[in-house]
């Protein structure tokens, strides 16, 4: 049953132009475009463009897939009545959820490979098996974090339009305050303050550090991890409450 559900989940994703544009085309195109503009510069930690922005754009694809194709999709199904109809079928919620998680992981992994290949061929990114495996493991962890947070956030939405507006606004906010457009240190002070509250900013910094073997156990790292863990805990509590409401 899981294999059948996953097959159709992937098929549905491939047919949604909106998801494809925001997840498969926009981040790699931006990665290439920015590389053409700023490819020669060096960034924090004496890293090259590829060393800094390859993990960043992998994370950006993960964010868009999880928020649009996983979170927003839940709202679409809830508001159009699909969720109600499916709930009347003898398919377990766990099967549906697991399929949705595997679908997101497959698509984001493809995004991972896509950005990596562009980095290798266009920006002279170096490949090391051990660092690849470590980075991929951390990437799966970030996937799980985003899936939990997105699920909790989108569980509040009862209208598709409000969820869509929210998604687009958040996408913009994440790009500018997550360090995906340009280094946060070059941004105005108020953006830097906002960035501190943006979990994607912390995830981005951690992922860049893991990708380049620069993860150091200092105060900043503990703050970032602590903030993410706290958000996940809050999200899990929200999901538990929302699930009870649905049953009750």
């Amino acid at each position, binding site marked *: 049953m899981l294999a059948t559900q996953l097959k159709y989940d992937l*098929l549905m994703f491939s047919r949604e132009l909106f998801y494809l544009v925001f997840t498969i085309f926009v981040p790699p195109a931006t990665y290439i475009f920015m590389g053409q503009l700023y490819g020669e510069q060096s960034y924090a930690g004496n890293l090259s463009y590829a060393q800094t922005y390859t993990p960043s754009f992998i994370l950006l694809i993960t964010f868009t897939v999880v928020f649009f194709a996983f979170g927003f999709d839940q709202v679409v199904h809830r508001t159009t*009545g699909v969720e109600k109809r499916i*709930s009347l*079928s*003898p*398919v377990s919620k766990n099967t549906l959820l697991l399929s949705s998680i595997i679908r997101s992981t497959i698509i984001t992994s493809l995004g991972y490979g896509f950005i990596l290949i562009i980095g290798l061929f266009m920006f002279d990114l170096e490949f090391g098996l051990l660092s690849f495996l470590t980075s991929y493991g951390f990437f799966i962890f970030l996937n799980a974090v985003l899936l939990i947070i997105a699920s909790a956030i989108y569980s509040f939405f009862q209208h598709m339009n409000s969820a869509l507006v929210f998604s687009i606004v958040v996408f913009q906010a994440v790009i500018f305050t997550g360090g995906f457009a340009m280094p946060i240190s070059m941004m105005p002070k108020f953006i830097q303050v906002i960035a501190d509250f943006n979990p994607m900013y912390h995830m981005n910094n951690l992922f860049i550090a893991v990708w380049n073997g620069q993860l150091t156990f200092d105060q900043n790292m503990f703050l970032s991890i602590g903030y993410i863990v706290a958000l996940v805990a809050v999200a899990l509590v929200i999901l538990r409450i929302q699930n009870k409401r649905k049953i009750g």
Partner: protein
Amino acid sequence: MKIIEVNNLTKSYGTNHVLQGVNFHAQSGEIIGVIGKNGAGKSTFLEILMTIKQYDAGTVIVLDENIASLPMNRLEQVRKQISVVLQPTQFYKTLKVEELLKLFKAYYKSDLDIKKIIVDFKLEPHRKKYFDKLSGGWKQIVSLAIAFLSAPKLLILDEPTTGLDPHMRNMLWSYITDYNKRTGGTVILTTHNMDEIELYCDKVMLINNGVNEVFDTTESILATGYKSIHEFYLKRVSI
């Protein structure tokens, strides 16, 4: 065999007391129409029978199970024996008709041949179309075809013929009555079309002011002097 037993059912949405003590029962093989004006609580009543809506008080027994106290796994067992057509009917919009049938065949672990279903429901010209692109009538036909994949003991239809032209309506009803005769399955539906009630239903339940004001056979209602169920409805229900 008793399929459904409902006693003194109440359900409110805030201060709106939609159901205020509904009593209802359905035997195996019956076709029962639930009527009432818009907002009377017909859909709420059906959704409670479908086991997807909580209620405030009363007893609801569906297929020998008291649904109020059922753990999720036993509730899923009850749901396996129920099929529904909702209003409006919605499925994954980016799946084609044939793909939807295959997916739901997997959900129901059905032995039925999808090709036969497509032939039986005259879906061949539409099997490659996206569900979202179908007309309202064909959406209802597909929904019914999916509902029959499970060979259900209980079929619940919420306004299945609303918006359909007479041919599509006839087609839908021929499938419903054929299912009822062939399998002895019970059918409960809501509709605003009183001709359909008169033509196809064994019993009628009129929900008015939150209670089942009338629950009787179609014949008995007509025997009391009404020329038609349409006239009965107009006289019993005020705007």
